[in-house]
């Protein structure tokens, strides 16, 4: 019963969210002010130093393509990043699909420039629920557990965090309200926490699950593909013409320039909005369960 009801709700939400896709198509922006340095904010990660190192080559590339000075600014978490974006402090930003959706709600004129390709060249990925090889073997076992289910999550605004993880549990008929969940930070931290048996389950990206597979991490459930990470631009200081020029340059980035990047080294693809309905649906479904996660 619970499962059928959840599926019905999901279908409605998917339909409603599909209409939002039209909002994501790029629209003309205002004129730019060429003299000031633009600000690029990468995805907030646990290790600020490594984040900076991963993104420095990309910052230099973007500055070269835009022919404008560009500086990198790090934010401790998604909330701070979204605040800065809304306040007009950030011009270019890397966002996961859910944060992009949240940002678009607060800032409708935010424009997607391109999607980061994954290591396998795809423009989407999956969120998975993982357990150690000697832990839960299938989600249906949860129903028979005597002790409460513990779940390691990355971050509140992460796509593979509560949104996808609770969605997957719900898909398998598991009421997320019974889950003891906590945020562990990065995907690697979630994977290690599960491997160390600190949690029974963890929600991570499929690539991280693959990385730790050899160490004993197993995938119990995987979501439908969700959109890849997005490079988005605030139109306040990046006009439509500049965005289009940047987009064209990124999509046609030569191999030798790609090789110099770390973040972005697998290339860029045109932005597509077709999968965002799924994110919106996940978010709508899981909104009520967010507060039960330990900070």
């Amino acid at each position, binding site marked *: 019963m619970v499962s059928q009801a959840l599926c019905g709700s999901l279908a409605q939400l998917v339909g409603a969210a599909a209409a939002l896709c039209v909002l994501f198509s790029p629209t003309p922006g205002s004129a730019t002010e060429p003299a000031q340095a633009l600000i690029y904010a990468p995805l907030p990660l646990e290790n600020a130093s*490594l984040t900076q*190192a991963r993104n420095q080559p990309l910052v230099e590339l973007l500055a070269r393509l835009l022919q404008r000075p560009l500086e990198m600014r790090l934010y401790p978490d998604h909330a701070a990043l979204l605040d800065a974006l809304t306040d007009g402090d950030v011009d270019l930003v890397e966002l996961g699909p859910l944060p992009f959706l949240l940002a678009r709600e607060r800032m409708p004129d935010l424009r997607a420039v391109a999607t980061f390709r994954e290591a396998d060249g795809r423009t989407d990925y999956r969120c998975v629920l993982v357990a150690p*090889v000697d832990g839960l073997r299938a989600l249906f076992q949860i129903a028979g557990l005597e002790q409460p289910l513990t779940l390691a999550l990355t971050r509140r605004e992460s796509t593979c965090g509560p949104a996808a993880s609770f969605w997957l549990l719900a898909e398998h008929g598991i009421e997320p309200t019974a889950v003891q969940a906590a945020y562990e930070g990065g995907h690697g931290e979630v994977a*290690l926490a599960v491997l160390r048996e600190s949690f029974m389950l963890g929600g991570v990206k499929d690539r991280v699950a693959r990385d730790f597979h050899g160490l004993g991490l197993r995938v119990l459930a995987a979501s439908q593909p969700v959109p890849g990470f997005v490079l988005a631009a605030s139109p306040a200081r990046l006009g439509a013409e500049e965005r289009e020029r940047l987009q064209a340059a990124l999509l046609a980035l030569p191999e030798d320039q790609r090789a110099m990047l770390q973040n972005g080294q697998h290339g860029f693809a045109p932005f597509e909005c077709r999968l965002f309905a799924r994110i919106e649906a996940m978010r709508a479904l899981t909104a009520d369960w967010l507060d039960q996660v330990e900070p």
Partner: protein
Amino acid sequence: MPLGLQPLEVARRRLLALALMIGVVVPLALLSYALLATDRNRAEQTLLERNLLLLSVSWQATQLLQRNSVETYFQEYVQDDPRTLALLRAARDPAQTDRARLHLLRHLSPAYERLVERGVRQFHFHRPNGDSFLRFHHPARFGDNLLAVRASIRRANTDLEPVFGFEVGRVVSGYRSLFPIIDARGRHLGSVELSLPFKVLLDELQALMPQHAFQLLLLAQRQRAILFEEQQGLYEAWPASDRFLVEDPHRLRSDSPAPLPDSITQVIEALGQQPALLARLHQGTEQAFRLRAAGRDYAVLQTPIIDPADEQIGLLLAYVEEPGLTALDQAFQGRLILVGVVLALLSLILLWLLQALGQRLSERNRLQVITETLGQGLYLTDAKARIIRINPHGRALLGYPESILLGAHAHDLFHYHQENAFTAEASCPILTTVRAGREYRAETRFRRADGQLFDVLVVSRPLLRKGDYVGAVTLFEDIGERKQAERALVESRQRLANIIWGTGVGTWEWNLQTGETHLNERWAEMIGYRLEELEPVSIETWRRVAHPEDLAESEAAFARHFAGERDHYEAEVRIRHRSGEWICVLDRGRLLTRTLDGEPEWIVGTHLDITARKRAELAVRQTTRLLQAALESSPSGILIAEAPESRIRFANRPALELLAIAPARLADASPLALSNHDADWQVLRPDGQPMALQERPLTRAMTEGETVTGEEVILVGVDGRQRWVSLSAAPIKDDEDRISAGIVVLADISAQKAVQHRLQRSAHYDALTGLPNRVLLTDRLEQAMARSQRSGDRLALAFIDLDRFKPVNDQYGHAAGDQLLVTLARRMRECLRGMDTLARLGGDEFVALLCDLADEADARVLVERLLAALSSEVTLGEARVRVGGSIGLTFYPQPLARDAEQLLHQADQAMYQAKLKGRNAWCLFEGSA
């Protein structure tokens, strides 16, 4: 035989002495510098080696300290931990390997957290075959074999002994401690590595060497080859050389060393600019060297980092500001200065000696040169009057060889006083005078070897030593020629006096040294005196009668001649006649003799009476000035050109202004109209055609002798400026009636012509629109009608009247109305062909004369165009108006004879019909088609 040293020998001796000095001082300086520099370098090397030894000892101590700590961790978490050993034993079974790894991760994760807190960067288990088993610092990566890239792992698992040392890795570099894991039963379970970051060792090193700054450099090629791809960005090229890498220069990792001080960054920049020092760095050996950066001396110490495979993986660099190096430099400089001062003093002494020697040599040489080149004979005698030295000229004068002269008795050999060849020595005036200690100076005679006597002037001086006569130096000069000349002079004076008498010039002679003055009789006659009346004469006689103003010029001319600036003296001087009048003489003279000292002595000259010539010249000048004043005051330009070169001889100011000739260029300027190559002006006829050379007034005047009056021409300057000029020209003939020059009178009539042009234009054109007016239209219409009669071509006359012009005038004012008329006139003009005429009769009435029509349809097309132009919108300031027009058309020729007025009337009638038709239309005069 030379009297002394030859000049070349003197120079050679000086050079030799100089070379000797340089040969002593320079090697001394070089030797001193070499000794001091060696000493300084030795001290510097000692200082650097002391630093290097300190680094070496400290680095060893640091490594030993860390090694002890890590050994404790190994014992606690691995070797003495049964659970760890059990899991590693289980891992040997392939079926349990993965499970064992997972459980090892779970078991030692808390321990790893503690190790990280204690500074351990890496905790890494390896299997006995060198495969990575579990990296706690990167748990997702395992299974790769490390034997090829990690010598320490190879040694730990083959030698089964702990291995310590700095080593690069796939993630980061670090101080590695590898321990083989062997259980109680002696089973080899693999190895474990505990790696410390450089920062931990650095902190220890810094505590031991607080003044130093440290930097770890890794060999770029080796490090890049080993790193995981995702770790490449953590490394950057060392600023001084890209052969080395610096790990995490931006301190992205929390366990990376603190940044180097700015001063050391400058040292590294300086190092990068010293290829020799970089080459030493690349050698990789333990060494120290000095480096100067930002005005300070630094010791740079390097010790190679050798990995457990005994291969160099990089360098540990220590930088320290070393004031001792500066002190060594200062001491070295102080010693250099001291040596320099000593050598300078030595050089000065040698130079002084050399200079004294040189002066003596020079003096000897000078005397030798004087003696040998003297144009007089000179000999030295001893106390017994025997010749001990005689110069070449003396030998030549006497005709004896030197071998006879040296040792001979001068008096016996060639003295011949008072024509007495046999005067006893005791009565020889030369010897008796000098032996008395006095100078002998007199003219006498000497006898040559061939017996010939010759006149000499002898000057002999005694040589005394401590008051005793020891000899004499005697100078003698052959004065035979002079004596002969004096005799000849007496004779020639008489001849000259006769000649002078014949020329009628006065003569004067003046000895500047004695004041002795001679004048001839004629000199006195010129000023109305007899010579005896003026005597005694002197230079004052002349100065009394000369005009004071001219006297000054005369004195100056004398001075120029005496100074050699002029080869003679010449001045025109007024002198007062006895009657009180001034007469003018040409006073000329030339210096005859100078004293032995070169001072002017005798000067002689003449006075020529030029009073009559001067008066004639004055008269000519006055006449010329009069004529020139007249020409200059003329308002017309006057120009005189000389034949045959046709150069301008004279041009007054109006002529120069008119022809724009600068006075300085007058000589080069082309005389107007005389040349085909006029650079300044082109001459045109009134019809605008170039005027040929032979047509030009001045040419005609100078070649044909014609007098031309008031001929109008156009002069076009090089800048394109045109001037109308009225030209009159006449020839000037010389005494033989030949044309020697020509005179041209020019008047600028441009203004007059401009007025004429304006008058003419205002009579034929409408002032507002610039279109022909009724007068010109009528003229052109009559001409066109005449042509039409001759050729049979048709013409048409269109009478145009604007519609609704008055309301525009009333509403927007007359200025707007005028603007409207101008605009429509321009538009109508643009509708017509070049051969057509558009005229304004007045008000808003226009007439178009359309000529050479092939047929009447051509005229209709043009009229339609005119109507369209008139009805198009016109912008008048802010307003936009649209008027229109009514046109009446008539053709010519017609069956009946018509004149211009009739045609105009027909067109006017037709225009009226068009107005009646409702405006903006045209009508054809009935019967004209």
